[in-house]
């Protein structure tokens, strides 16, 4: 039995984003808009009203020139495993109508648009602001409607949407594997649009539990960290950075605390899982 076959049942699809490589070009955002039929308005200046499943944040070290350093942080849905790693991510457990669910075979947090009735409790629960509300009816310029992705349903006004790790691509890859008589899909067969579009290769995607997948090794790197780890949401999006000031931007620390202490605590948690 190969190592790949040992990992046929439960997956934990996750992403590792190397912030040392990210240039903030926004290709991941553009690819996501196109792949997932994310609508946009004429005026997108108010970012808190913008629909974006992945958004790139610009942060700096707070020092004046010439010591200024800048880092770009792409932020998709963190696909949290929740406290105790049992799938009760902050948003899933609060949704009153099971319109968002944790998919145990993949670890991906889904959003069922036709069941969501727009109470927005999941948005209140998400510490990453990964969830977006359709404040308006979706619309595209007439000629763009021809380019909508037929594999992804468009969403109606009044419902919440979010990054799905391009779950429709997972379904396609699984169908292909089935037709070819395989139980498993290969790492390259299922990659989200943002990862494919990244020109610097800063984004890596795969099964965090599969030692043959790149993300397995990267997520265990000394440079790896996650956003707001102290909240114990257990995200499946990891970041890599060699800069300590970037690490400090990822979480809140009391006086005297350092990111290193937290990394050790997280490793113990992941190992026990």
């Amino acid at each position, binding site marked *: 039995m190969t190592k790949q076959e040992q990992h046929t049942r439960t997956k934990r699809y996750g992403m590792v984003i190397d912030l040392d490589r990210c240039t903030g070009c926004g290709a991941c955002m553009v690819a996501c808009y196109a792949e997932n039929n994310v609508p946009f308005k004429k005026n997108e200046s108010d970012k808190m009203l913008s629909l974006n499943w992945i958004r790139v944040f610009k942060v700096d070290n707070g020092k004046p020139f010439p010591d200024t350093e800048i880092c770009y942080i792409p932020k998709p849905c963190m696909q949290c495993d929740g406290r105790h790693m049992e799938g009760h991510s*902050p948003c899933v457990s609060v949704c009153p109508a099971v319109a968002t669910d944790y998919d145990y075979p993949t670890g991906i947090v889904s959003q069922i648009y036709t069941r969501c009735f727009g109470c927005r409790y999941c948005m209140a629960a998400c510490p990453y*602001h990964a969830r977006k509300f359709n404040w308006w009816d979706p619309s595209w310029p007439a000629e763009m409607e021809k380019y909508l992705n037929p594999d992804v349903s468009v969403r109606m006004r009044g419902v919440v949407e979010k990054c799905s790790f391009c779950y429709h691509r997972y379904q396609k890859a699984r169908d292909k594997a089935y037709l070819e008589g395989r139980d498993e899909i290969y790492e390259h067969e299922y990659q989200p649009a943002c990862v494919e579009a990244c020109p610097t290769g800063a984004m890596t995607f795969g099964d965090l539990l599969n030692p043959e997948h790149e993300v397995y090794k990267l997520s265990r790197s000394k440079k790896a960290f996650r956003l707001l780890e102290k909240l114990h949401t257990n995200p499946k999006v990891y970041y890599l950075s060699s800069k300590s000031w970037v690490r400090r*931007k990822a979480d809140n620390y*009391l006086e005297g605390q350092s990111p290193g202490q937290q990394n050790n605590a997280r490793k113990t948690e992941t190992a026990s899982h």
Partner: protein
Amino acid sequence: MTTPAIPEGVKRCSTGKFALWLAVVGAVLLWGVYAMFLVWYKGLNQTGMNDAYGFALWIWADLTVIALGGGAFFSGFLTYIIGKKELKSIINYAVIIGFICYSSALLILALDIGQPLRGWFIFWHANVHSMLTEVAFCLSVYFAVLTIEFLPIVLENPKLDRIPFLHHLSHNLHEVMAVFAATGVFLSFFHQGSLGGVAGVLYGRPFAFREGLLIWPWTFFLFTWSAAAVGPCFTVLITRITEKVTGKKLVKQATFRLLAKISGWMLLTYMIAKIIDTWYWAAVTAPAKGFTLMDFYTNNPVYGIWILIAELVICGLLPAVILVTRKGRENNLLLMTGVILAVIGVCINRWVMVLQVMAAPLLPFQDWYMYMPTWQEIATTILPIAYGIILIMLAYRYLPVFPQEKELNSGS
């Protein structure tokens, strides 16, 4: 001879004066109704909410009216379960105020959801892990109970009372009212608590999150407690306002004082629990997530430490001390100061547990989120107040709401 619509032995203003005031309040109501239809027709883009403020003015209004409407269940509990007969003179009004508050809450909820036609999904696809599911079930059932409690009061209208079937129905409903009061108490303990749980379970939001007992965060118990404490204060406040407006004595002073005394002790014990909860949250819960107390009260233009002091001291401990002391209750000015401060206190509590939760930043590279409601949100929040005033006007004019009114105003 035709039966008058106004209850026997009480005086009411002329039909013209009544219609004039009805038109004034009705105009405000129509303004709210117009805003309501704009929201339903055009969607939630008519509000000042955004992706950071998924919960805003409406959810605050919801939580607040339900807390203030708590006077119905707690007065019912005291009257029918504990046996405080003195409160029978105010229980009708407490029920009507509760009915207004809960029907308003349901209306606001219907506005607040992005897909109002799917509102029933909360019952059909119920997620048993969600506090909001529990709120929806208990709220709806309790509203049904309040309607049943309100029905015999409506049936006592002289014109309706003439119909034998309705007369007997009203009589029989009165006989079994203790059963409904007990059901209301049971349901209220749960949905008041669940509303507290809505914020308390948010473990991704350190400002709101609280540890607790089994599946219930401490906010679950604190919300029930505060609603039981302040709900009767709101009943006293509205009754006193009604007395001022009508120029009549409607309830004996002793009843107000009894209700204020019970409220005072409930408020004092609630404040002790709330201060312990705040201390534990500030010293243990928030620091474990990387936050100090002052992180939640600095670097923003609105939420300074003043709001915590206002909630806990000025509108918490102070009214509690006023209401538990005999001198405080016997001095009319002090009594009303205590009652008003307590009501403001619970409004502040619900505000911070909704709005400040949304405002506080979590990632160090994000700033505080500020929010400004639109006129549509404000109009639809005022709408229930106008509706409540109209219902009170109608109830006061046509129903025997206050059993002591005749006796208290016999000299005038």
